[in-house]
């Protein structure tokens, strides 16, 4: 079998997420490529969580909602996922919590009772069943559990083996999965972007917990001593952004991260970064808004918010990765950008990119080490007017006096209200904006996938959904994904102006479609939108695309 999808569902606190990530690891060890979506609610106990892991011997950019194997750890999960089974799929339910189930009932409740963590251990059942049906031996399962569930390993092994025995007794179906060529590591978008920033020389990560950005902070906290990137968790997002700005002055490479509400709090500092020319990289990981919205789900409704951050005119760079792999390279590139131009930048992601995981091929040596234009000579002026608008940097401690300022200031950084200097400094910052645009023309700012067929515009995590939909629907099309969104690469858009363009995005008002219209007068023929907090499902999206192309 080539493509195979596994869903495991249960209550929060039953180890569902771990049951998903262990499965992803099982597949990747077979050399298969995997994509894992964790669907969880903003609560700690109860409710319904599930993970979907789709895998294939070839590239795979999305989960599928029709599964070959569904393992339900409780009765509610069974009800929810009853319709998520393929025709010839296998449905496993918890016989202790489900009456009249279709499929195979396993005594998950009964068997888990005797263990000290009787709820949390249930997730192990997922991996035990999966191991059995893909033809692994009990010994192989034991090794897998040892690795994945090392805390309380004895109990976990014992429970896994009991489930395996029960499966052997009751299940008469097996799946033969093809092995793939390479075993690649599995990372989430947030892990991948954190690694990318580290590869570009990050010194500090400052963050205040907010889903779906929190796991970046967790990553740096966990790897503090290994990576030597200092993690800081201050009192609020205002503290975060202002600390970050302060830290750039002595030369630290700093990244901060948050979601919409936190970004709103950082906005005052964003403008300060623009004025003081502080190179801070902000990660904005979107969730459905407005306000608290739906914290653990996905949407792309912060596009305009990201593009319009900060009061006043100042240069800013906004880019959004279209895959988990790209989030690694692009974050490194963005850290470089903000240092090169001494201005703030935003890496825009969504929950679907930040918190989904997939097999990725990362090469840290391809990431540039962030550097800046440094001052040499005498009579240092922080805001020296230069041809490209970028003033050389000098870092304290220094014999020279170095003054950065939130007020409009003269070249030395002393506050001014002089009309000529105000004009000159505005021109300096605008020149910098032009320099950025000029330089962006030399690098890749738009990804295009596919050679022929209708043009589909998309960006961010939706790019993954579209690419998978084209594959599964066997649709020939050209996918155009602007990676940079500010400055918007209008210079790359000429060839699409006269095409019948389809836009796919996750916002209710079609923010991306209106951006295309505004920036390059591309008026899409069809805008496929989704705004229920869930990412597109490739088979469903393929149907919609076929409809639109017709």
């Amino acid at each position, binding site marked *: 079998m080539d493509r195979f999808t596994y869903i495991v569902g249960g209550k929060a606190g039953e180890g569902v997420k771990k049951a998903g990530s262990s499965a992803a690891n099982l597949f990747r060890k077979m050399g298969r490529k995997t994509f894992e979506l964790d669907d969880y609610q903003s609560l700690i106990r109860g409710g319904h969580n599930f993970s979907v892991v789709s895998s294939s011997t070839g590239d795979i950019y999305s989960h599928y909602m029709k599964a070959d194997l569904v393992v339900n750890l409780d009765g509610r999960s069974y009800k929810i996922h009853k319709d998520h089974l393929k025709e010839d799929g296998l449905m496993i339910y918890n016989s202790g919590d489900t009456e009249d189930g279709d499929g195979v009932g396993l005594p998950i409740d009964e068997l888990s009772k005797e263990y000290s963590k009787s709820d949390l251990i249930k997730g192990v059942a997922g991996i035990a069943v999966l191991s059995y049906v893909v033809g692994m031996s009990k010994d192989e399962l034991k090794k897998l559990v040892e690795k994945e569930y090392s805390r309380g390993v004895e109990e976990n092994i014992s429970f896994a083996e009991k489930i395996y025995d029960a499966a052997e007794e009751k299940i008469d179906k097996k799946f033969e999965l093809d092995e793939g060529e390479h075993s690649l590591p599995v990372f989430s978008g947030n892990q991948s972007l954190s690694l990318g920033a580290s590869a570009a020389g990050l010194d500090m990560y400052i963050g205040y917990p907010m889903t779906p950005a929190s796991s970046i902070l967790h990553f740096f906290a966990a790897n503090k001593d290994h990576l030597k990137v200092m993690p800081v968790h201050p009192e609020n997002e205002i503290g975060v952004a202002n600390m*970050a700005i302060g*830290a750039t002055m002595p030369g630290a490479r*700093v990244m901060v991260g948050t979601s919409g509400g936190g970004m709103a709090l950082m906005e005052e500092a964003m403008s300060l970064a623009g004025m003081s020319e502080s190179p801070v990289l902000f990660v904005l990981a979107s969730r459905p808004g407005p306000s608290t919205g739906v914290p653990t789900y996905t949407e792309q409704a912060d596009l305009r918010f990201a593009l319009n951050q900060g009061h006043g005119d100042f240069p800013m760079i906004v880019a959004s990765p279209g895959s988990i792999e790209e989030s690694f390279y692009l974050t490194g590139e963005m850290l470089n950008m903000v240092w090169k131009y001494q201005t703030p930048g935003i890496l825009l992601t969504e929950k679907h990119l930040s918190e989904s995981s997939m097999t990725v091929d990362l090469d840290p040596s391809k990431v540039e080490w962030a550097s800046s234009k440094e001052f040499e000579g005498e009579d240092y002026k922080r805001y020296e007017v230069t041809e490209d608008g970028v003033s050389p940097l000098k870092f*304290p401690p220094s014999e020279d006096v170095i003054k950065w*300022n939130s007020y409009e200031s003269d070249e030395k950084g002393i*506050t001014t209200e002089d009309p000529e200097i105000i004009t000159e400094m505005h021109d300096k910052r605008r020149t910098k904006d032009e320099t950025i645009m000029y330089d962006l023309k030399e690098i890749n700012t738009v990804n295009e996938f596919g050679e022929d067929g209708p043009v589909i515009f998309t960006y961010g995590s939706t790019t993954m959904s579209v690419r998978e939909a084209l594959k599964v629907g066997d649709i020939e099309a050209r996918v155009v994904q602007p990676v940079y969104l500010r400055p918007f690469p209008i210079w790359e858009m000429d060839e699409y102006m006269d095409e019948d363009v389809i836009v796919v995005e996750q916002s209710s008002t079609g923010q991306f479609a209106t951006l295309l219209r505004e920036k390059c007068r591309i008026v899409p023929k069809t805008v496929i939108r989704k705004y229920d907090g869930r990412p597109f499902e490739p088979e469903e999206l393929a149907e919609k695309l076929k409809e639109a192309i017709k």
Partner: protein
Amino acid sequence: MSEELGTGAENTWCLGCGDFGILNSVKNAVKELEERGIERKNLLISAGIGCHAKIFDYLNLSGLYSIHGREIATIQGMKFANPELKVIGFGGDGDSYGEGLSHLIFAAKRNADITMIVHNNENYALTTGQMSPTSVEGFKGPSTPKGSIEEPINPLLLMLSSGASFVARGYPGKMKHLTELIVEAVEHEGFSLVDVLQPCVTFNDTYERYNESVEIIDEPAETRFEAMELAVEEDRVPIGVLFKEEKDVYHEKVYPEFNPVKDKISKEDRLKRIEELIKGDE
């Protein structure tokens, strides 16, 4: 003697403003610190927004002129990035005890190794004299024409209960004393707050009140609790170091011996470490 510490920027404070006394005390303190081996180049300053903050333009020291209330966060960022630097923030009472209060409380809580000098003039001067967090009840300003109906907060009490490891109060009318306080605050390893009773001749002239009531205390209180009692005294206003204790500082607890900027690991080393994470334990 300290003229070289000026920048030549035009001074726009009102004649008689208590900020002049603070500026001169800071200049003298910088000289004194240099004599004690703290080099000027290792001092980094920041300021909020307000009359107080103009000190940034008047001091020929490196730093970042921040925004209203956020200089407390700014200087922590500077310190964490390069702990070799001594960082000083200048705030106002509106600034540090209002807009940026959360940063102040948490800087004290985590014992960030910073010095905050708060020009406490009991009003928002730059925005034309509105009531501030420390304005007395009945204070008349454009937003409280009939007098403030709120009680003021006591910033020293607040700082003491937030775990601050150095809490002092000074008065520009006692410049030599204020200079000593600033020197001690900067030398203190950990969070230091110097609340300065700053007369604002235009909107809140407190010279008479404080000339009569301030009293220099020679020794800090023995305990935090006794310091709190000093902080709430009303008949006399004790000035000096109210409380001081040695505690581990934040950045050293994160990295006992590592300066993120100065000891930055090489690119090769970093990439090797990333490769290790990518490969995992296989």
